[in-house]
């Protein structure tokens, strides 16, 4: 209860700051527009105003305060503008029965989400396989693991434009190139987490299985795999967030026309700030939902295994 009150207070303060920040960010644009429309502005002329402090301008022209929160293409859109845009491109579309229209964020979110999920599935699948190999083979452990760790320090996203162009030139396009970037980003967190998890049973437990004369695969299915579950879910949560980032970044360099990344890029080309912000929030909500979904699955699985609290 105390936490909820605290979080709500913090959120209120943030939104308050946001509204306040709109004043200095947008005032110059608003005053220029007002002057063109024939309203009296102090001081006259955009040139005089350019070097003035923003707060001074706000105080001199208090009539413009309202307008800074309702500009058409503001530098910083006010929270309600973003909320309205989000509603217009999601809820209102559903009510009109055009859920999958190209103007709807559901459509764009789905384009990104499908690449994310495909990539996530590929990445975690390969990651788990590699982790199993690393745990069971000393050669693989010694030769691959250091490289896997080093590769974490490399900004893999830099590869994104190249992967897309290369795959395009061999005739692969559509969802797969983005999915490959997603897979690449979610691959390593899963490998590292899974190796840690598969190694987590201590020598006492491994010895016990040996006294039962359990085979290697029995040891894997009955001890190592169940023991790795908490680690797996922790890295899955990191992996899915990384996958989403990968899918969004994968849409940037190709000039894709659909997807949340394309909305960001389009918005930045045409100065549609409200569109950028709403795409950003849509991506944030999507990421939060995905992580929360994994959290729920984690709780159910761990509970059925008797580990969860």
């Amino acid at each position, binding site marked *: 209860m105390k*936490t909820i009150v605290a979080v709500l207070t913090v959120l209120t303060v943030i939104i308050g700051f946001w509204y306040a920040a709109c004043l200095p960010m947008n005032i110059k644009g608003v005053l220029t527009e007002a002057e063109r429309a024939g309203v009296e502005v102090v001081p006259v002329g955009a040139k005089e105003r350019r070097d003035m402090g923003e707060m001074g301008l706000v105080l001199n022209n208090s009539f413009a305060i309202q307008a800074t929160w309702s500009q058409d293409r503001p530098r910083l859109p006010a929270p309600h503008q973003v909320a309205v845009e989000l509603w217009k491109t999601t809820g209102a579309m559903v009510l009109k029965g055009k859920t999958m229209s190209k103007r709807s964020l559901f459509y764009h979110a789905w384009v990104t989400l499908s690449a994310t999920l495909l990539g996530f599935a590929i990445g975690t699948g390969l990651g788990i396989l590699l982790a199993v190999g690393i745990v069971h083979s000393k050669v693989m452990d010694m030769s691959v693991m250091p*490289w896997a760790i080093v590769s974490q320090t490399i900004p893999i996203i830099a590869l994104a*434009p190249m992967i897309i*162009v290369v795959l395009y*030139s061999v005739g692969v396009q559509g969802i797969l190139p983005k999915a490959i970037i997603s897979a690449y980003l979610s691959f390593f967190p899963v490998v590292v987490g899974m190796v840690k998890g598969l190694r987590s049973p201590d020598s006492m437990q491994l010895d016990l299985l040996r006294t039962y004369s359990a085979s290697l695969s029995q040891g894997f299915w009955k001890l190592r795999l169940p023991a790795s579950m908490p680690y797996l879910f922790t890295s899955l949560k990191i992996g899915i967030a990384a996958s989403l980032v990968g899918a*969004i970044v994968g849409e*940037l360099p190709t000039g894709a026309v659909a997807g949340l990344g394309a909305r960001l890029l389009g918005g930045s080309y045409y100065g549609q700030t409200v569109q950028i912000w709403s795409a950003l929030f849509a991506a944030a909500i999507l990421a939060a939902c995905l992580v929360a979904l994994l959290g729920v699955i984690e709780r159910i699985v761990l509970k059925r295994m008797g580990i969860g609290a």
Partner: protein
Amino acid sequence: MLMVGLAALIWCGGWWLNTRLANGPQADTRLVQLLVPVIFGVTLLLVWQLLVKGLQVPLVILPAPSDIAVAFAGNLSKLRDDFLQTFVKGALRGYVIGCSAAFLMAIVMDRSDFLRRGLLPVGNFVAALPIVGTAPILVMWFGFDWHSKAAVVVVMVFFPVLVNTVAGLRETSAMQRDLMQTYAASYWQSFFKLRLPAALPFVFNGLKISTTLALVGAIVAEFFGSPTVGMGFRISTSVGKLSLDMVWAEIVVAALAGSMFYGTVAMVEKSLTFWHPSQRR
């Protein structure tokens, strides 16, 4: 065909050598532990080179390591300018600003229970978000030069460092805090002598995660607009010109910068948290 056969032979040879080394009696010595990944890496490079040349893969799909090395050596001054613009000006400045801001914020949050309760869930939430998405907005606000890249980096590194530092500052046990109390230590004395050192492993965890994020942020921000220099700019224009050897050379620079940045932070960590169990040998 000869080269492909040779590649297969080298692959088997390298693997056989590594198997012998890893399962041999010397497997736990430092030398072998270093040697095995190096052999693996070299084998991979050789196989890549031979396969690309042997199968005559066109340059636009995958350049051979030798092509990349030539592009790297031929464009040293260009690559250095890109490195200075993106890494030193953009990523490093943003990293320093973002990490110090997050660190100070974490100290403030730690002093007030209310702030911690309110901000920590928000911080955790934001840390999992695709923050790269703020890049177009920040480029719009701060212009095309390094300022906008540094701003993206600040936003990207802020939350991981914040969340980790706050967790670290709560790491001391009640017993240890009571001991400081019996010494009549002031808040700042117990902060510098007990809680800050105890928090350092966590802080460095955040700092290490942030090294990669800083580079990613600076590079991706350049996709949204940049001066005619910079690693992200070079990558996107070289892809457009289909000169993939240049792209790969730039990726080599990014990889070197990323691992060296990480390595430096890890070395500082080692010298400051030598007492921690994870650092003991």
